[in-house]
């Protein structure tokens, strides 16, 4: 009995993962063409990209270090997505988390690590959470689209950070616009000497477990998923949609904030100009490749971690600009959300023809019984009604 069940889970996982893996391969092939088109040797580029990161311990360490950062921004996106919101604001939340983290990490000298590190993480989470909920509040209160507001909040956070590090938080002994370094008591320890792999790994794993428990074992997560899938059903079941989405955005922001605090204190050790870079949007690609599932996000973080951490190596060895990684990310997102592309064309025509032919031959009596499709197709208005329920109608 137990064995059968295990098999089922395995089959389910395989079923869930075959498309992302397929998409990955297609993207890799497409990218090879692009790289060739740019005038480089794609095989050489892929060799540079994968060999050192897979064969050397150092490579693994760097991959994991990058993956840690990705987990948080991916979770930030996925938590919001599950409750029906598009959070493009991971970047801003990362900035805010990093600022709060560094603020705590550069002060409180003499505090033992056991207290100082958690303080840093909590500060980052809170700052990110508050910043994340702004967009949700604006949406609930004024109906402002979270897609635009989160994006604008990113730029505001970026300029705010630049302001801080060239003014109030500037390191007085440096000419550059950067903050003081985090105190050693506030920094998560490095796990693997010579790499940047740090104890944040455990925090990241804990975050994934938290995401799983939150979404699948708490009433909040259940409500969020209901609301995200069908607001009408949520209303019917008496759920408070706005409140739920506000909470979801706060948690999502908190995730990114936590990631920001870890990234700023451990990897960068200080705040500098544009220190977040594209990390927020890297998380979006990671979340989509991982299908928003806890395990999926873990695995795809590893993959993108590898890609991003060894992109520079590719640039050095094969001269291919490291930024082609973004191209790769874009293609992955398109393939994942545009999955229907494989249902188009000849295949579909053949299928429709086949179904029509078959159904005409089936027993009539049986058919008249099930009138459901009919009721739907009977009125053109049915399509209209459906449209009204779409969450995309954001304004």
């Amino acid at each position, binding site marked *: 009995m137990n064995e059968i069940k295990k098999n089922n889970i395995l089959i389910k996982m395989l079923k869930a993962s075959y498309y992302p893996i397929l998409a990955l391969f297609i993207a890799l092939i497409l990218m090879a063409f692009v790289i060739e088109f740019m005038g480089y040797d794609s095989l050489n580029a892929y060799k540079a990209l994968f060999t050192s990161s897979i064969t050397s311990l150092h490579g693994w360490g760097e991959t994991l270090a990058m993956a840690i950062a990705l987990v948080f921004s991916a979770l930030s996106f996925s938590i919001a997505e599950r409750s029906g919101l598009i959070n493009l604001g991971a970047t801003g939340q990362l900035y805010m988390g990093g600022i709060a983290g560094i603020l705590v990490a550069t002060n409180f000298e003499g505090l033992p690590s056991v207290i100082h590190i958690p303080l840093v993480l909590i500060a980052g989470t809170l700052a990110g959470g508050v910043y994340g909920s702004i967009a949700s509040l604006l949406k609930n209160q004024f109906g402002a689209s979270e897609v635009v507001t989160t994006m*604008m909040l990113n730029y505001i956070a970026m300029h705010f950070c630049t302001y801080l590090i060239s*003014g109030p938080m500037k390191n007085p002994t440096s000419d550059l616009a950067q903050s003081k370094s985090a105190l050693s008591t506030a920094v998560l320890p490095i796990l693997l000497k010579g790499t940047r792999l740090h104890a944040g790994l455990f925090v990241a794993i804990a975050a994934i477990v938290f995401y799983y428990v939150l979404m699948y074992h708490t009433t909040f997560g259940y409500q969020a998923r209901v609301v995200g899938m069908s607001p009408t059903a949520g209303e019917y079941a008496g759920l408070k949609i706005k409140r739920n989405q506000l909470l979801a955005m706060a948690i999502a922001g908190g995730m990114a904030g936590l990631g920001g605090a870890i990234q700023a204190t451990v990897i960068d050790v200080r705040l500098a100009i544009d220190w977040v870079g594209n990390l927020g949007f890297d998380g979006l690609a990671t979340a989509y490749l991982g299908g928003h599932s806890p395990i999926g996000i873990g695995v795809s973080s590893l993959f993108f971690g590898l890609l991003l951490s060894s992109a520079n190596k590719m640039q050095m060895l094969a001269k291919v600009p490291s930024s*082609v990684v973004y191209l790769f990310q874009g293609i992955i*997102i*398109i393939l994942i959300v*545009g999955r229907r592309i494989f249902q188009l064309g000849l295949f579909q025509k053949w299928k429709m023809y086949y179904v029509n032919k078959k159904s005409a031959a089936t027993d009539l009596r049986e058919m008249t019984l099930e009138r459901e499709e009919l009721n739907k197709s009977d009125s*053109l208005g049915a399509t209209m009604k459906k449209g009204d329920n779409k969450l995309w*109608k954001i304004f």
Partner: protein
Amino acid sequence: MEDFLISVFKMAVPLLLCSLGTLFSEKAGTINIGLEGSMLTGALFGALGSYWTGSPYVGAVIAMCSSMILTLLFAFFAVTICASQIVMGVAINTIATGLTISLNRIFLTSNGVVRVNGFKNIAIPFFSEIPVIGKVLFNQTLPAYLAYILVFVTWFVYSKTDLGLKIRAAGEHPTACDTVGINVIRLRYGTLLYSGIMAGLAGAYISTGQLSAFSEGMISGRGFTAYAAVIFGNFTPFGVFRSCMIFAVGMGLQYRLQAMDTPISYYFWMMLPYLITIVALCIYRNRSNAPKYSGIPYAKN
């Protein structure tokens, strides 16, 4: 004051080009936040074209073509495949980021930052002699004239022509359009491609018109602002013009205040355009003209 006005009218040009273009695709019922990426691509190819040929006008044409191709990709997935338009927009932005940074490093910055030929100001005789107004309005680059003329052209097409009527209908009730024989899919493709072309031109204006060089983060959210301008302008041509001018005043003010010695740090002034955008979206109460089927893919049965 004159300088300030000149800078405002300059700032408004790319916003206007981009928002007036996307006004049509928004009205036809698609949400394209890939504008940011389209502008970025346009900015790079505008600079590249100008660098290769020495003519910013050829650069602009190349920019328009390049961002049209990028938008075609968006249109295919958003309209034909019915994928989530927002996420597709993000994907387009990501691709544009990768593409522009890579190509920039390959072609332009491999031997230091390259300055390219920019658009020249063309003074209109007689009119440019008028004090203040002359300098502000009638001593501009070609794309700038185009942008301001486009406000009227857009208004005309939008409200007076058969095409404009079809576009306005397509985002309101695609099924009804279908019953009177309008090809909604084709309309959405067309408007999206047009918005792509205009975003490309806007991008080219930013790189070759304003700065005469390309830098990687140069669009910095202006695609999103252009999109917000359409919403804030209640989806009408003159509304879009008004909101673009408001945003441009915000941007002009930002530079003005940066230069002045204000007690508030200049980084806060940098935030101003973004804050104005957020506030604009929040106070946008008159949604009377927003298309009912915005962002909902239309699948014919």
